[in-house]
């Protein structure tokens, strides 16, 4: 793969300036497409799980067709109306967009919050608790339970911030470990206090009671529950816009960037670095918490399940943020890309190839790493240096 990209960028150097400008814009997109193609080839080369055997070419054709019909087209060919494919992508992109923003804002301030998963779990617990147990007027229920999610996420992140200020515990360590605390707390709640009962009073499998209809997020363009684009997607996009404005136009956003770029200079300019880091971490946790709340209240079966703790949304947020270059707008597009990947891999599991979900996850993970590598600025610089007239290639 290295050589392929190398030749592509190396040939670039001989082109006229306008062609290079076009190539520079297409470059990242092209690199991503290249990685996706290679991932497809790897999947096609894997032995199929099903009973029927397909050649490499046949497999590749199936993967291509499935991706086209199940991801790119608005709906599957058999269907006559609706945007089922696109809606699935948006549903899958929504929590990633928010956890991506959580990581992006923290990393911009050089606060290494890798506890997105734990904060996401905390948000999901808070939303469920408020929606299920707190009586309130139906109209206020949704704002209240989402606010609870935001606060819960911020609170869990704030624990890490307090530990850092009070005892110099590195944020990267405390946020990582708090993930496990949150996960086990979720399991405990679903085994005990929050575990749902059937009408006859017997215990169900570990899961919370179902959210009432008034607590579920409203949907658009859907034909039934969990079939449309829920409110959460719009909240996530609005969060991205707000964060973008915050970073660009507020004194706090400016301080956040300065602290992230050069903490020492921030201190020498009279900025309270501790306070900025604290607020950033809380904000970051708030985004992740909101993601958790939206995930429970926005999608069927509208219950809190133990699986939510290990769905990896928080961790994938790191990749989403990095691919989006830590910019809120970039994160929106990056989250959409990840949403499309999820939709594609889910469709491939159900395609004639019956690609096993474990294999799909492994390939998806490798694909994410490859995409991060080829879209990183350092990689682009390195590739430029390996042009035909550079000193590195002179020695090759």
């Amino acid at each position, binding site marked *: 793969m290295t050589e392929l990209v190398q030749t592509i960028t190396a040939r670039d150097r001989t082109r006229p300036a306008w062609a290079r400008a076009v190539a520079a814009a297409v470059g990242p997109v092209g690199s991503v497409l290249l990685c996706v193609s290679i991932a497809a080839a790897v999947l096609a080369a894997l032995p199929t799980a099903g009973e029927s055997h397909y050649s490499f070419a046949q497999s590749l054709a199936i993967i291509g067709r499935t991706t086209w019909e199940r991801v790119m087209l608005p709906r599957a060919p058999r269907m006559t109306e609706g945007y089922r494919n696109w809606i699935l992508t948006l549903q899958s992109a929504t929590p990633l967009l928010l956890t991506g923003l959580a990581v992006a804002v923290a990393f911009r301030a050089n606060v290494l919050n890798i506890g997105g998963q734990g904060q996401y779990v905390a948000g999901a617990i808070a939303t469920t608790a408020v929606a299920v147990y707190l009586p309130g007027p139906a109209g206020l229920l949704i704002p209240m339970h989402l606010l609870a999610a935001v606060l819960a996420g911020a609170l869990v992140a704030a624990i890490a911030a307090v530990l850092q200020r009070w005892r110099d515990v590195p944020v990267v360590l405390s946020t990582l470990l708090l993930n496990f605390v949150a996960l086990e707390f979720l399991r405990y709640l679903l085994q005990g206090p929050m575990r749902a009962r059937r009408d006859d009073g017997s215990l169900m499998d570990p899961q919370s009671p179902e959210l009432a209809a008034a607590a579920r997020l409203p949907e658009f363009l859907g034909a039934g529950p969990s079939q449309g684009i829920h409110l959460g997607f719009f909240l996530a996009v609005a969060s991205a816009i707000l964060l973008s404005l915050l970073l660009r*136009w507020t*004194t706090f956003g400016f301080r956040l960037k*300065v602290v992230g*770029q*050069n903490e020492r*200079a921030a*201190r020498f300019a009279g*900025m309270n670095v501790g306070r900025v880091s604290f607020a950033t971490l809380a904000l970051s946790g708030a985004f992740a918490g909101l993601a958790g709340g939206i995930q429970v209240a926005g999608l069927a079966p509208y219950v809190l399940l133990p699986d939510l703790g290990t769905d990896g949304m928080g961790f994938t947020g790191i990749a989403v943020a990095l691919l989006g270059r830590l910019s809120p707008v970039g994160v929106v597009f990056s989250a959409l890309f990840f949403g499309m990947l999820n939709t594609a891999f889910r469709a491939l599991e159900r395609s004639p190839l019956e690609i096993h979900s474990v294999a799909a996850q492994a390939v998806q993970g490798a694909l994410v790493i490859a995409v991060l590598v080829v879209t990183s600025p350092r990689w682009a610089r390195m590739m430029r240096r390996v042009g035909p007239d550079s*000193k590195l290639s002179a020695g090759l």
Partner: protein
Amino acid sequence: MPVATLELADVRKRFGAVVALDGVSVRFAGGRVHGVLGENGAGKSTLMNVAYGMVRPDAGRVCVAGKDVKLASPRDAIEAGVGMVHQHFMLAGAMTVLDNVLLGDRRIGRVLNRRRAAEQLAALGGRLGLTVDPSARIERLSVGQQQRVEILKALWRDVRVLILDEPTAVLTPAEVDQLFGAVERLRDEGRAVAFISHKLGEVKRICDDLTVLRRGRVVWEGSARDVSAEELARQMVGREVEPIANAVVLGGTGKLSGLPVGDRQADADRSAQRNLRLEHVSADGLHDISLEVAAGQILGIAGVDGNGQQELAEVVVGLCPPASGRVWIKGRDVSELSLKDRLGLGVAHIPNDRQHEALVGTLGVSENLALKAHDRPPFSRMGFVSWRRVREAARALAERFDIRAASVDAPVGTLSGGNQQKVVLARELGMTDEPKLIVATNPVRGLDVAATDFVYRQLLGRRQAGAAILLISSELDELLALCDRIAVLYEGRLTMTQFPSAGRAEIGRRMAGLENAS
């Protein structure tokens, strides 16, 4: 003409659009000390990095002892017989002198005879007058001793050419004398020494031959004996040098004719106002410091780096609270106030380290100018920043402080050192009200003559306007030329000198800790 030990012939190097070296040819002969002079950006460092294998030239040849060599790395250069001592030392602090010297020496093989190596190293040092204990740990050594280790490290590999990059920047006057003694012995052994500097006085003192670079070309070369320092300065800059910076660069002493001294009566009136007062201040690295700086006065703090300069500046501006003692600014006790609170009293700070303390290299010029004032009117309202107003102010300041940048949005990191320092000055002196107290640490370090002159004029202008200035510097010449009074900081203790009756020799001795306050 003697055989050139190191010859660089028609060397060319471009970095993007910038031509760093435009066909430079220099011959460094054995048994001679050859000075390479030039302003920042003249190409000195690039040229020396070519000779040391750190930069590959686009064209031209490098010959060592008459043979063409291809240098792909410093390792190649050392094997060819060229060694270099960098301005910033590259030593492992927790290891001993001997370990540092042996590091990377591939001749050692698998078995290390430490005792024999230590004896050889001590013998080498003794022969050159560079005595240092091979078993001492680097972090325990003074800067001057660390430099000796760097020189010994190069000579241990038996290099025939030794490049010294700005070697005197961190030394006391006495340490400079010792260094020059060693350089002379190296010359007498027949080695070639390349001496990179922008201090004309020193260059005249130690060098046999000189090459002056300007904008990547050799503009003057010849014998050091036949040329005046004034002529060299003119060659470096390409025009007549301004009087203030000139005097400092030439190593002048005492007060300057070109310095705006101002009205004596006004000075006397103002000196009643103590803009800064420290009483028995102790902090980490500072012991019982008391000092006063009046309005319209420059108090110089002399001393070798690392004797409490950074700590003193931080205590005064409010970055570090004093452990005991009190700090007054404009008659107000500010001991408990943070830096942010002290800003309102008119405290300007020009930190020691432009890139890490004063500026954020990735952010634009205007954003750096707004670093301290971004949350104050007129630039901010209700937590929002008006970047339009910041840009307007930035454009005006860029004009006033002669900041040369592609635009006010250009990242500060892309600016030259001189322009970066002008951004710092513009922020500290121009972005808010007239400062009452200026704390400046090594404000012209690494700047060329023109930028140096600009900085000095700005500081002297503020002195005229009634600011109290605390000028902390490791360049004694700078302090002698600019200050009203000079105190010496040694191991965290401050002693006043009887400057100007105390001359540079006495102050130099105190900087080395050889003489205590009388």
